[in-house]
């Protein structure tokens, strides 16, 4: 996945209305009118959000010329999650390894206590 596409995905997800639209589409395709219904905003405003989601590749338009139903595209979301998982795993992995190193250091310190170590050195 390219950084540009990740950027677009995250920018699209940064808005609560767009997240709500995605959540709605997760339960099945819907027309612009249907999507606008639960929100206190106009259809053109919803259309703007849909354009952002579409540019990010998060949704697509159906062929039905009348309704132009929007559907969720799962791929970019899955890619973004995979990428984020990688990042979190990287840092959490670092710190879990550090936890182990610290446990070992604590055990060693108990066996061979070095008195007043580091104290008074400030």
């Amino acid at each position, binding site marked *: 996945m390219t950084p540009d596409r*990740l950027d677009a995905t995250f920018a699209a997800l940064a808005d609560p209305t767009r997240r709500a639209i995605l959540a709605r589409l997760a339960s099945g395709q819907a027309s612009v009118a249907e999507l606008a219904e639960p929100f206190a905003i106009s259809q053109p405003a919803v259309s703007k959000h849909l354009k952002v989601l579409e540019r990010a590749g998060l949704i697509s338009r159906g062929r039905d010329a009348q309704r132009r139903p929007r559907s969720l595209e799962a791929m970019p979301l899955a890619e*973004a999650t995979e*990428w984020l998982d990688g990042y979190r795993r990287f840092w959490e*992995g670092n710190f879990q390894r550090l936890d182990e190193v610290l446990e070992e250091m604590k055990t060693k310190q108990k066996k061979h206590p070095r008195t007043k170590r580091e104290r008074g*050195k400030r």
Partner: protein
Amino acid sequence: MNSTGTLQVTTPSEREIAMSRVFDAPRSLVFDAWTKPELLKRWLGIRAGWSMAVCEVDLKVGGAYRFVWRSSDGTEMGMGGVYREIVRPERLVATESFDDPWYPGEAVDTTVMVEENGKTTVTTTVLYESQEIRDAVLESPMERGVAESYDKLAEVLASIA
């Protein structure tokens, strides 16, 4: 307060990004693990297939540190900087820059270790040269993913799942 093991990311000012985590150990040990090469080599950046090929620390004000990670296929990634403040075992300030920079200029890392009931909260704050650079880092998927979007994404995914 954070619970042990939970990673927190915040933006304390317009030029900074901060990362915080609690460790179940006194800070004298955490400080050592953060500054002694033989200990750093065992935890920092050791992803699958990657090891630390170079880990040099000259722990004094004005002293340099240099880390190079090498993957099993020979790819290398290096970074380094200079220590500006060392207050053992509670505070470390150092510059950081990457060999293949993914943001402009040099950043300054401030690591503060606070001990309470035998546990240590480590907070690393990275200060960038300008708000534009900080924002660019936040804009990059890596930082932003952690800083703000992860929860939102999790929210969306939870509703989809």
